[in-house]
């Protein structure tokens, strides 16, 4: 398909817009069409676009073909919310705005078809302008390797120079005298020239130190790791039939070092599905048993809605009492659902009898209306002035008198309806904070009860709404309607007047109850985030969504918790205010850090208490997450950086790094734009990095990329971006500094499931493919990230490091010995001084080669065979040294191997076997008789290796080489074990213990793991209110409905009514937009700022199932660090069903990081009977 600028193309429902189009006409009335821009900016609500009225009549292709207008517009740019241009057609000018544009990447919804004129195509589209170029990425190991190789090359040249000098000296001092037996070659008549030649020969001879084959080997190893990722069943999504896919082979070990994760929200953390989960009606809470995690037994069966032919079969609710109440006809319950079925802006479509389809502009509203539908209050249809509801099978038509529309300041919406009996009633739903102020005083008791319920819901991360109604007398209505009309007609300050009028009527309301909607997270997201933050990985959420939505999600996925000391909100619109906000935030953190230093003693005591009280998981994650600046790239270094109980006074700048977590930052797109300016970015970064969680809302794709870039540039940390849609592409491969690791989630939602039913369609649904194509790894669930990072990443990293060390060691040992033997004594002096030159990782290699040379030297120089022939000929020497080398190196790699599989055995023994085979072959008489010049070692092997002295020498050399290594490692392990070592050790101990006791532990340990996961989700009782009208709502829809503009002609009773005052609503909408700016971050009244500051119990927590009484008073903060850090592993002992004590002491934070990784690593691969489970593993184990 070749779409070019100027083409007119037709789009059908649910199609992606292929280019930036000027909307000409659509199948809907008035040239309206609906689009979803989730792929573009992450916003999930539907948006309306309208064509110019002059072009909206061009419906049939013939007329369109006649269209010959000319568009003059701005050049291609990356501003998604702005377009300006002019259409010249039939001698007149029409202004074009973003309202007329369909941008590439949007999806057409609820519109049968539309026609558009291509304005920008291909790379000029705004979507493409927002994405960056791809760049070849290298890992830090690559860079390390390159520098090492350069250093080695330098070392080689140095060696060459030194040896050449040695050669010159020898030739001058000795060689010149030795000429009678060994004359100089004719062209080389002086020692200097000979030295020059010697230099080059040594460079050539010693070139094996330069590990050229390293690059190939590394790539092969990486390829293997990539395959292991692809093969991992634990990263396979059954539902979508999608395995994980490593789309690049080069970045595997980088996964183990990720410190920052930048995540998209919609489709990545959440499924973008809202479900009606709980409600509180008249002080009675329903739906309590719902919990996606654990609680399987209590959950029971979903309710049976078969009594209701119009019920939506996808809807699930589990609390039978609510249905009973409905059936019993309790008035408040009925009123509750009546409200839900009336007070909304949802459109319904009934394709055939009983088959209702709701078109909600925000998914939460849809969820509420669907809930009412299932409980017997079915919203069936509406006209601009009526709403028809099927109330328990009885159709009732309400007259819709007014819609008091939603906006960000009001945070509520109301409808005023007249029921068939003629009673007028106002129904209102909105944020509880605002609604409670407007209740009739007699509601006080009910309000208290409902408030408790709301707190509970909010604590579970649900989105809450309070519902209320008010009876209006005819007189009241008339008066108000009059004032309303007056306000509507006003030309100046229309909004303010309307708001005031709305305010008037929304008074003295009667509380009905509250709803709680769950923005469904993807499976296992809170656990994954908890575990990742345990591993000291910082997670930043970058989303196009509104602040309230983002914050709510932050709470529900446990990124934000009520135990946090403070959540900073930054949504200033000017440079000054942003700077001020950032500064304040930092000051607050510093202050508390200082006071914390002062009150260290008390805090430690408090810590111990916290340990025994077990205040939930949230603080556990906090305590750990706060533990240090950057996470685990360099563990050793990190260990030193750990805040020990008495840290030395730190200068202010580092103080920021050492702040003990518990802070979060929420920043809006506007503020971010300022914060990302050159002079403020450092400030922003300092603040943000001191926070445990960062949420950026209402950000554009480009800003996502900029944030990623910023962190990369200044933090020298490995970053990972994860996202699902086209709007994440730029973040995933940001332009100048692409994120180190890019992840695409094969996101398809329900469509994905539908797609996988058709054979042969790619791994993801339509939505995700763009991100997947730009990504390095792709899988279909956020929770797989845990396994990817903590298991595969860690493995790759460790294996690669071990491999590199061993490779360099091997190369050095090899070069220094095998070749030396030919020249040894010549350069005795040089070699004895070699250890001085030895540096870094090479010293071991040098040591080995020195030993391997001097031990045989010492032995063989005097030795004779048992038939009297001296052993000191150089072929014997060569064989001895080479054999010792192979054996030493094999022993060395055996020591390095922590995990012996059959494959390891095969290769280690195999390489030894191969060595001897090849040795004997090369030294065989047969080969010699064929090629006497090439295989001049004939007979050396049998003659040499037949001698006991030789074997004694080899044994001696091996022992001398290995013993120091062994002693050193043992000391390190014994005195300073890392957590992974300890874990292994305890596993070992337990295995031994279990052996006599039978094999009962296996299943139990899996169960114990489940407990870990199960526990995570259910904790965190909130003490605070942060519920909010978190609708992804746009105002103006109320007007749209009452105007009847969006009604289909067929279903519209009063078609003429619609056309009469059709002009106003879009204009109003536009005006409002212009006034408010493209985004509308609301005031923070209902935002989390009101969270009471939690006590500074940052240091520790008890993480465990609630019902387990805390034990282990032994885990005092002053105890040995790892003794408590070990606990998580030990706690999951087989058989012990609910073990306690997930205490993590402050000092052990880093250990814990290591340990978690260690655990993850060991476990899943380890075939030990009782693997310490990670939540994800156990959940899969069923």
């Amino acid at each position: 398909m070749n779409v070019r600028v100027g083409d007119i193309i037709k789009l059908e429902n649910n199609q992606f817009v292929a280019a930036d189009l000027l909307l000409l006409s659509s199948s809907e009335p008035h040239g309206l069409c609906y689009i979803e821009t989730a792929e573009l900016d992450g916003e999930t609500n539907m948006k309306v676009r309208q064509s110019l009225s002059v072009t909206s009549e061009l419906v049939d292709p013939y007329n369109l073909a006649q269209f010959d207008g000319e568009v003059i517009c701005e050049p291609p740019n990356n501003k998604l919310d702005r377009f300006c241009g002019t259409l010249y057609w039939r001698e007149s000018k029409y202004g074009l705005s973003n309202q007329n544009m369909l941008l590439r990447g949007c999806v057409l919804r609820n519109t049968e078809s539309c026609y558009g004129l291509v304005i920008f195509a291909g790379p000029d589209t705004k979507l493409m302008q927002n994405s960056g170029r791809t760049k070849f990425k290298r890992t830090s190991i690559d860079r390390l390797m390159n520098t090492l190789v350069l250093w080695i090359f330098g070392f080689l040249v140095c060696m060459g120079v030194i040896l050449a000098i040695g050669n010159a000296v020898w030739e001058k001092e000795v060689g010149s005298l030795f000429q009678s037996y060994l004359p100089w070659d004719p062209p080389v008549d002086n020692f200097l020239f000979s030295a020059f030649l010697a230099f080059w020969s040594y460079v050539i001879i010693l070139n094996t130190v330069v590990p050229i084959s390293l690059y190939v080997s590394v790539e092969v190893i990486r390829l293997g790791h990539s395959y292991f990722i692809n093969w991992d069943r634990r990263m396979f999504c059954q539902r979508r039939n999608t395995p994980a896919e490593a789309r690049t082979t080069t970045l595997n070990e980088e996964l183990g070092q990720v410190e920052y994760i930048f995540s998209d929200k919609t489709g990545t953390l959440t499924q973008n599905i809202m479900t009606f989960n709980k409600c509180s009606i008249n002080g009675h809470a329903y739906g309590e048993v719902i919990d996606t995690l654990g609680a399987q037994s209590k959950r029971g069966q979903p309710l049976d809605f078969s009594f209701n032919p119009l019920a939506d079969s996808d809807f699930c609710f589990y609390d039978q009492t609510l249905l009973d109440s409905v059936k019993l006809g309790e008035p408040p319950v009925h009123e509750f659902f009546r409200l839900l079925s009336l007070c909304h802006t949802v459109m319904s479509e009934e394709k055939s009898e009983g088959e209702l389809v709701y078109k909600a502009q925000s998914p939460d509203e849809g969820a509420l209306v669907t809930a009412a539908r299932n409980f017997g209050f079915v919203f069936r249809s509406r006209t601009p002035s009526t709403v028809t509801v099927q109330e328990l099978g009885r159709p009732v038509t309400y007259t819709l008198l007014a819609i008091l529309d939603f906006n960000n300041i009001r945070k509520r919406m109301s409808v005023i309806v007249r029921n068939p009996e003629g009673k007028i009633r106002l129904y209102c739903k909105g944020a509880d904070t605002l609604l409670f102020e407007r209740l009739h005083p007699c509601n006080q008791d009910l309000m208290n009860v409902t408030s408790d319920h709301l707190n509970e819901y909010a604590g579970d991360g649900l989105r809450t709404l309070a519902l209320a109604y008010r009876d209006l007398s005819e007189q009241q209505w008339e008066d108000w309607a009059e004032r309303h009309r007056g306000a509507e007609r006003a030309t100046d300050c229309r909004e303010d007047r309307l708001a005031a009028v709305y305010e008037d009527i929304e008074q003295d309301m009667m509380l009905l109850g509250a709803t709680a909607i769950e923005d469904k997270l993807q499976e296992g997201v809170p656990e994954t985030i908890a575990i990742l933050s345990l591993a000291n990985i910082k997670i930043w959420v970058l989303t196009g969504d509104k602040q309230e939505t983002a914050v709510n999600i932050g709470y529900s996925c446990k990124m934000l918790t009520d135990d946090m000391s403070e959540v900073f909100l930054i949504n200033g619109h000017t440079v000054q205010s942003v700077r001020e906000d950032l500064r304040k935030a930092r000051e607050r953190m510093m202050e508390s850090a200082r006071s914390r230093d002062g009150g260290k003693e008390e805090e430690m005591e408090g810590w111990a208490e916290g340990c025994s009280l077990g205040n939930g998981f949230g603080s556990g994650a906090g305590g750990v997450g706060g533990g240090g600046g950057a996470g685990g790239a360099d563990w050793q270094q990190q260990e030193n950086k750990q805040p020990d109980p008495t840290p030395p006074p730190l200068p202010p700048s580092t103080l920021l790094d050492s702040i003990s977590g518990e802070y979060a930052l929420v920043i809006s797109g506007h503020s971010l734009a300022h914060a990302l300016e050159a002079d403020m970015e450092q400030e922003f970064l300092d603040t943000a990095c001191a926070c445990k969680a960062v949420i950026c809302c209402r950000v554009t794709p480009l800003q996502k990329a900029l944030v990623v870039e910023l962190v990369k540039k200044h933090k020298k940390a490995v970053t990972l971006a994860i996202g699902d849609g086209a709007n994440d592409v730029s973040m995933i491969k940001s332009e100048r500094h692409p994120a180190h690791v890019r992840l695409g989630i094969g996101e398809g939602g329900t469509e994905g499931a539908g797609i996988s039913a058709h054979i042969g369609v790619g791994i993801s649904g339509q939505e995700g493919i763009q991100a997947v194509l730009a990504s390095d790894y792709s899988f279909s669930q956020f929770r797989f990230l845990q396994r990817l990072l903590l298991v595969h990443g860690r493995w790759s990293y460790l294996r690669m490091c071990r491999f590199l060390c061993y490779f360099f060691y091997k190369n050095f040992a090899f070069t220094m010995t095998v070749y030396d033997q030919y020249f040894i004594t010549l350069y005795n002096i040089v070699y004895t001084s070699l250890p001085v030159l030895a540096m870094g990782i090479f010293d071991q290699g040098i040591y080995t080669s020195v030993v391997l040379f001097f031990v045989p030297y010492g032995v063989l120089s005097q030795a004779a065979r048992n038939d009297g022939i001296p052993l000191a000929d150089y072929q014997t020497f060569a064989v001895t040294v080479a054999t010792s080398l192979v054996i030493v190196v094999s022993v060395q790699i055996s020591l390095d191997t922590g995990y012996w599989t059959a494959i390891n055995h095969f290769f280690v023994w195999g390489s030894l076997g191969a060595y001897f085979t090849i040795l004997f072959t090369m030294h065989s008489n047969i080969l010699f008789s064929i090629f006497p010049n090439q295989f001049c070692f004939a007979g050396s092997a049998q003659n040499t290796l037949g001698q006991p002295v030789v074997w004694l020498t080899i044994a001696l050399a091996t022992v001398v080489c290995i013993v120091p290594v062994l002693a050193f490692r043992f000391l390190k392990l014994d005195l300073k074990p890392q957590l992974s070592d300890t874990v292994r050790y305890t596993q070992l101990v337990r295995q031994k213990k279990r052996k006599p006791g039978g094999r009962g532990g296996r299943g139990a340990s899996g169960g114990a793991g489940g407990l870990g996961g199960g526990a995570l989700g259910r904790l965190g009782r909130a003490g605070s209110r942060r519920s909010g009208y978190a609708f992804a709502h746009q105002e103006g829809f109320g007007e749209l409905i009452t105007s009847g503009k969006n009604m289909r002609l067929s279903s519209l009773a009063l078609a003429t009514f619609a056309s009469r005052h059709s002009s106003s609503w879009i204009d109003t909408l536009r005006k409002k937009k212009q006034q408010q700016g493209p985004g509308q971050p609301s005031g923070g009244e209902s935002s989390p700022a009101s969270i009471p500051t939690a006590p500074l119990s940052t240091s520790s927590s008890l993480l465990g199932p609630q019902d387990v009484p805390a034990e282990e008073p032994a885990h005092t903060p002053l105890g040995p660090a790892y003794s408590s850090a070990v606990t998580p592993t030990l706690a999951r002992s087989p058989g012990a069903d609910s073990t306690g004590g997930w205490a993590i002491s402050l000092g052990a934070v880093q250990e814990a990081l290591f340990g978690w990784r260690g655990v993850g690593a060991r476990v899943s691969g380890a075939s030990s009977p009782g693997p310490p489970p990670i939540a994800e593993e156990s959940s899969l184990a069923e």
Partner: protein
Amino acid sequence: MMASSYNAKEEDGHHSGASGPGGGAAVKSKKPDNTAFKQQRLPAWQPILTAGTVLPAFFVIGLIFIPIGIGLFVTSNNIKEFEIDYTGTDMSSPCFNCSQNFSWNSTTPCKCSVSFSLDQPFESNVFMYYGLSNFYQNHRRYVKSRDDSQLNGDKTSLRNPSKECEPYRTSDKKAIAPCGAIANSLFNDTLDLFYIDPNGNRTRIELMKKGIAWWTDKHVKFRNPGGNNLNLTAVFQDTSKPVNWRKPVYELDTDQENNGFINEDFIVWMRTAALPTFRKLYRIIQRKNSMTPTLPRGNYTLEVTYNYPVRSFEGRKRMILSTISWMGGKNPFLGIAYITVGSVCFFLGVVLLIIHQKYGNRNNSADIPN
């Protein structure tokens, strides 16, 4: 430390759709195979350095090495060795004249005799070596200056030796046989040993010149050209003798089995030494009967035909007499090294044990109650 197999039940046990039952309508599952290899859970053995394994290992190494070392040391001490330098750098030395007046062209060989006495009798077979010091047989250019295929009897190589032999490849436009610097510098002193009994009578001691080279060298690596043709003069016709040699290669010995390239003195010389100070086996003195020692204590004379100049590079020439044991010649280093390493290991073991007992804290934390 044990291998343990993985329980496959922990996986969800779902077989891939392709092999699933009734798969007709089933969509082909992309689920990865559930094999131990692909899921990275091959049965494995995890060695771990614990006090229980490392410390005993150290003690065991110590306990094995020390006795071996003592055994080696004692054996080595029982070996008798006698060494005498006959270079003749001193004025007082009997060979001083020979070493001073040396010229390559002199036709009359210079002879000198060195007398020495053995304090102890040498039992069993005695091996007689010549030793050279400061002689760089291991020099890169020296080592490769030979043609193995010529030495293996290859006819073409005989006439046209390898370029490696330069500058000892041809002389007078005739190929040198054997070519190369190694062969050219063949050690050509002749050593004779006389026993002087208490009465003053000189008894020549019989020196065996066979069996001093590796069997493989003598029978595989080195062969005369022309196979069994015993007329070596004809075989080596059209070749020239090495520059420094006094007689051509086919006159090295009268015994046809020990002449030409398969002359054992020559073979021994051609096996280049690894170090600049080396010794090479020269002759074997076989014991005659079990009653008398092979070399009784008393006075001896070493008669040297001084042909080999070493003064120019400050070399030294020695004659060595030695007996051997099962482990070869005298070699105190090995025994001492074993004793040292064994003791160090043992000592390390003790130190580590103390450290472990005192500071090692893993065991305490490892037994955290469940």
